[in-house]
């Protein structure tokens, strides 16, 4: 049962990442592979404040979201000049640069040593304090966050704003002629997505109680991208489904009983193969409403 709770927490965190990235990639058509950077910013701010200064989790979470928003604004400004392949490449470069900062700014992030001893969230009402130390209570918090993000994503995509995002994806230049300053929309959704990713980062840091830069590498961004490509672009439900599938399926593979020397590589192999086959046979993913 604990294992199921664990997987649910991880799925919830990945689902938040998937839903937020889907706003950027699936709805707005900006193929960003920099999402792990914001995930990392959320995680690091939370970790540093919790482990170093004993700040309350929820305050740390808010600060993490704020910093992610600020960085996303800068990065979004840079990225707003590119499209298609160049967007991918530029976002990839920015992810690597931010990863380098996590890795090399030792005085702040402790570099490769990582930050241990991050505490679980604590709810304090008056003199009564309640720590979310059990995995079950943490699952409730994670699901609460995931549901909030889900509702936010649904609200955004069903609003006029969301319609503009899709139109940007389809034909940005034509949309401009109809009076939209598309660059602001792109920036806005990029920042919104980054803030949501920061929530996931804060949850991750607090759940695992330890973070180091390896969790925020380019590889993670590519994983998040696979989540929504598999689940389906421009579909919030699809992003959730993709997250659950990509978290649970590899875990199931642990039970297949392959010889240990190929089991691990087999997982990578299947993952790569899935990407190729999806692109060939179903480029919109399982539940996608948008074909790349």
């Amino acid at each position, binding site marked *: 049962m604990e294992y199921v709770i664990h997987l649910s927490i991880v799925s919830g965190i990945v689902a938040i990442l998937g839903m937020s990235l889907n706003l950027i990639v699936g709805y707005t058509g900006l*193929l960003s592979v920099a999402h792990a950077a914001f995930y990392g910013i959320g995680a690091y701010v939370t970790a540093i404040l919790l482990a170093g200064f004993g700040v309350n989790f929820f305050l740390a979470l808010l600060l993490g979201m704020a910093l992610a928003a600020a960085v996303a604004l800068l990065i979004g400004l*840079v990225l707003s*000049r*590119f499209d*298609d*392949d*160049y967007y*991918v*490449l*530029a976002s*990839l*470069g*920015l992810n*690597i*640069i931010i990863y*380098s*900062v996590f*890795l*090399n700014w030792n005085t702040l992030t402790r570099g490769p040593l990582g930050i241990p001893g991050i505490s679980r969230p604590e709810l304090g009402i008056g003199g009564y304090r309640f720590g979310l130390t059990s995995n079950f209570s943490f699952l409730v918090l994670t699901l609460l966050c995931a549901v909030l993000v889900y509702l936010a994503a649904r609200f955004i995509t069903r609003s006029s704003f969301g319609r503009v995002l899709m139109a940007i994806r389809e034909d940005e230049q034509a949309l401009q002629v109809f009076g939209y300053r598309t660059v602001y929309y792109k920036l806005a959704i990029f920042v919104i997505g980054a803030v949501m990713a920061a929530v996931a980062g804060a949850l991750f840091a607090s759940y695992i109680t330890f973070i180091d830069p390896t969790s925020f590498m380019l590889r993670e961004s*590519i994983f998040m*991208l696979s989540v929504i*490509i598999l689940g389906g672009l421009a579909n919030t439900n699809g992003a959730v489904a993709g997250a659950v599938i990509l978290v649970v399926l590899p875990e199931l593979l642990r039970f297949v009983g392959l010889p240990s020397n*190929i089991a691990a*590589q*087999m997982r*990578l*192999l299947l*993952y*790569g*193969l*899935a*990407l*190729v086959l*999806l*692109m*060939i046979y179903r*480029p919109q993913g399982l539940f996608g409403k948008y074909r*790349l």
Partner: protein
Amino acid sequence: MDLFVQLTINGVIAGAIYALIALGFALIFGVTKFFNLAHGAVAVVGGYAAFFFLEHAGLGVLPAAALAVCVAGMVGFALHKTVFLPLRRRQATNLVLLIAALGLLTVIQALIAMFFGSQFHPLSQFAGAQEVYRIAGGAITLVQLIIIISALAVFGLLTLFLKKTKFGKAVKAIGDDEEVAQIVGINTHAIIGYVFFIGSAIAGLGGVLVGFDTGIEPTMGLSLLLKGIIAAIVGGVGSLSGAVLGAFLLGLAENLGIWHISGEWKDAIAFGILIFFLIWRPRGILPR
């Protein structure tokens, strides 16, 4: 002064390696216009094929290297035939191709790790002791000289070949406009297939030479490739001379850059250059 000379030499060596990757990448990009991320995997295939021929088939250094280059070329050709061509036939967008290529990169690296293990293998032990030459106070080994010469020779031969032959003209025509090229009777699919072979073979050569200079491992593909792509973009996308220029520029900037910045920022420097160029000079130094 010595420091400067040596850092410059280091930069040129790194640049030559990047150039070999960037040349093949730019050649393929020139006709297909998509970012072939599987290009990095092809370089790994080249390195491991050489390792296989040296270690298990007992071949000499030159035949093993030559065969490895061919294997890399054939793998590139096969990827084109089985994945990229069908996708391009149905007008898949660049992003679809890019993600498929990413999947291929993952698959190939996993396969190599399954068959050869994840260890690091230097190939230099098959080539015997290394001669070290001194140039203006800086040091360079024979392998490194060969890398620089190969990069320049491949660039020269490739340019000449594309300029002088009918094949080269067809490649240029496809690069300008694939549909028009098809209309005037060029068998574009066949030509693109050959381009994949040539480009991948060059990357394979890069992989082999990296193996002799430092060593090979299954995961080296992505970092090699990313440097190659940066070089190709900084130089001017799709242009061969641009790719070479960009590669040497990148190599020099990385290695001279850490003169004053600590070495662990090397990757950040490389990608910083990429972002800088993308913003202020997106067509590169020598646009096609």
